[in-house]
């Protein structure tokens, strides 16, 4: 019988949507019991949110001063201490989970399955490789624990309505002091979160300056959309790195994705493959972005985008 422990991602105040998606993936394993572990210093609220997710059997809260904010080298030995009771430990394939889970896997002497996009059996999964140009089916060894990250864009968040029991777990593990948190600089937080947003407006190199990105912001504001970007736009300093979408940025699945002045490099496309509708605005009718877009408009963004913003009333 599979027992899955999902490691919750949160910011101390609320649960990151990646957790509810990881729970959805875990519940795809036939007959699995799914528990969620919440690490932090004071996590009653977050644990409560996790307990409300359908499919969760139990929430373990592990409160310790050192667990806030989360540092992989500090969480990993605690997860190892809990892992003995489980056949699987899952984390989200966000920068939090990518940083943490391989450290857990190595301590347990197993490889990690990165970016599960489909569960085919308790030890069989599908995952993307080569920037999503190939999908590989893998079988994890049947006799060892499965450590994996979940490609969150492949899963809908688990619904709420549950009321799973919350237990305080005390974990016996020696914690290192060699890694210390200094600071987290976040972008403006008044816009919707890129991962969670139903709509995303994304700008590329064609915007040509930080000032011109104002066009993207205005359109996004009209739509209540989050801001995305291409690597070229980030490298040029027009937008902060956390807006980058793609192989090495964020993998997202909004209902509506509008790509403006983005050519559609394979590394970018891999980040938006699961979007509901892709709209592309580009002045080059040959741009590869049109090959994957549901609605394409050939035109100069500097006239089209203000017009569109106005048309949305």
């Amino acid at each position, binding site marked *: 019988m599979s027992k899955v422990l999902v490691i919750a991602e949160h910011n101390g105040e609320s649960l990151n949507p990646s957790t509810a998606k990881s729970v959805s993936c875990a519940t795809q394993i036939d007959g699995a019991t799914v528990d969620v572990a919440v690490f932090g210093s004071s996590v009653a609220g977050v644990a409560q949110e996790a307990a409300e997710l359908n499919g969760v059997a139990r929430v373990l809260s592990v409160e310790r001063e050192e667990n806030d904010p989360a540092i992989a080298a500090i969480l990993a030995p605690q997860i190892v201490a809990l892992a003995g009771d489980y056949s699987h430990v899952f984390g989200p394939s966000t920068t939090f989970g990518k940083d943490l889970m391989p450290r857990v896997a190595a301590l347990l002497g197993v490889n990690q399955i990165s970016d599960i996009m489909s569960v085919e059996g308790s030890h069989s999964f599908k995952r993307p490789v080569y920037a999503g140009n190939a999908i590989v089916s893998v079988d994890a060894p049947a006799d060892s624990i499965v450590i994996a990250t979940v490609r969150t864009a492949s899963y809908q968040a688990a619904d709420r309505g549950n009321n799973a029991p919350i237990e305080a777990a005390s974990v016996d593990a020696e914690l290192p002091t060699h890694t210390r948190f200094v600071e987290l*600089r976040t972008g403006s937080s008044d816009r919707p979160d890129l991962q969670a947003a139903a709509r995303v407006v994304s700008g590329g190199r064609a915007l040509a300056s930080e000032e011109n990105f104002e066009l993207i912001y205005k359109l996004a504001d009209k739509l209540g959309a989050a801001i995305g970007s291409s690597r070229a736009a980030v490298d040029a300093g027009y937008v902060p790195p956390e807006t980058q979408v793609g192989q090495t940025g964020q993998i997202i699945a909004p209902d509506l994705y509008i790509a403006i002045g983005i050519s559609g490099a394979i590394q970018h496309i891999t980040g938006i493959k699961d979007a509901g509708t892709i709209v592309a605005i580009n002045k080059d009718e040959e741009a590869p972005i049109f090959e994957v877009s549901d609605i394409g408009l050939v035109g100069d963004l500097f006239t089209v985008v203000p017009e569109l913003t106005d048309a949305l009333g």
Partner: protein
Amino acid sequence: MEKILVGLKRVVDYNVRVQVKSDGSGVETDGVKMSINPFDEIALEEALRIRERGDANEVVVVSIGSSESQQQLRTGLAMGADRAILVETASSTDALTVARVFRTIIDRENADLVILGKQAIDDDNSQTGQMLAALWGRPQATFASELTFDGTTAKVTREVDAGLETLEIDLPAVITVDLRLNEPRYVKLPDIMKAKKKPLDTIPLADLGVDGAPEVKETAYKPPEGRQRGIMVEDVAGLVAALNDKGLL
């Protein structure tokens, strides 16, 4: 610090449109351009800069793979690495095995710092650095976009989903690099000639006495389900109409 190890993985060049083999056994690599994993070039560039500003004395590039990986190691030497080590194996290696190899090389070389890419663009695993740090019992700073050294500690800025996080870590440590850390230098012809004389040691993987990890079996490769090309609209009015049709506004 004395010595920095840098991992250089030989991968299908990032410009290649990768094709799945018709029998589903893998992707086509015959006659395909191979290169250093782009993140590893950035890792090497950073190591060279650290050495050039006097914070380290030696940069050693390491690759685990077939004898063909010598090409990538030679390129690394031409960029400026002092020495190269090829851990040779004909079979493909998983992340934990690679991490275990690095762990033994650290001891052999007495390395103070290991810089790897944040992910290999073939397997897209993003595991090796974190695993190595775990096996070594040392700090990890992944997805680095900025780093500075101060004697026995380093300050590393990491690109995380929420923004930029800064960690302070004690050395020795493992750092994995993101794209914006630096721009790798171009290799000049004279450097390629000079690189031919630099030492490149080959160690058979079997000689290292590294335990193989429990195997994750790859049972089939398939091309992804593609998206269909949709409609083109003439103007903004057409776009708004099409969005309305789909109930998206």
